[in-house]
């Protein structure tokens, strides 16, 4: 059995969807020793949403996330389709969950 990241699991159990997404992005950045990461999702009721690691501003959007297709964007790039699909699913569910929460 593959080990679990308790902080992400704990966040998913007790925290918000958005908080869990940012925790997951931080974990990806740490795990792959990346410079940066961002997640783009399309969610009904929200439209296109960009989540930047660390909740940092996009400033001049030098990576053109504004017009990027849904996906996980990593710098430097990491070719991991499964990770990208899972993160997009997590981000989408997170916003839907938070929107439905009282």
């Amino acid at each position, binding site marked *: 059995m593959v080990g679990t990241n308790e902080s992400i699991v704990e966040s998913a159990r007790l*925290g*918000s969807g*958005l*908080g869990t997404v940012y925790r997951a992005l931080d974990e990806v950045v740490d795990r792959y020793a990346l410079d940066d990461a961002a997640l783009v999702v399309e969610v009904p*009721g*929200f*439209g*296109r*949403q*960009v*989540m*930047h690691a660390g*909740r*940092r*501003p*996009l*400033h*001049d*959007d*030098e990576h*053109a*996330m*504004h*017009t990027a297709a849904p996906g996980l964007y990593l710098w430097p790039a990491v070719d991991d389709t499964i990770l990208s699909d899972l993160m997009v699913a997590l981000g989408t569910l997170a*916003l839907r969950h*938070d*929107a439905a929460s009282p």
Partner: protein
Amino acid sequence: MNVDELELRLRRLPGVVAVGFVESDALLLVEIQADSDAGDDLPRAATALAAEHSARPVAVEVVRWGEGGPSTHEARLRFVELTTDPAVGELTVRLARGDHEALGRASTAGGLAAAVEATVYAVRDFIPDLPYLPGWARTVETTPERRFLVVASVTDPMARTHLRGVAEGATPIEGAVRATLSALNRTLSRDL
């Protein structure tokens, strides 16, 4: 309201695409990236939400983008690089729009204002009749992560108007360049 709730409420505002935060002891900077669906009242609505959330002073920066096509980001100038040459006492700012790059230079003797000056000079390569002159820049906060929050100002002497931008950078100089570009980019898209 915690930061998750604030971010969610901001993302629910029409046209909001991304929300970013820079928190310091003295200020909460909220950067909102918005597309063409955003209404004119977005800054007011976002500021009201942020002020409700934070006990500290709040600065809300709304970055608006164009019609949503694949090249809308090209309606803005991008910060590419900042270099300094201590031997010559000069700093160089490189900006880009698409494949077009331009440089602006200024003497480092001017301190943070030199970053504003070099950025304005680089912008003039894209917009020769840019009415704004370099103004000033000040570091307003250093974050716990050693990022520098900087406010920069440019002035149109004929219209007697000022544009001010807020941005963070790895150094105060970089923050000043980004803040200057942030101030100017709000009005540049129609001229590009």
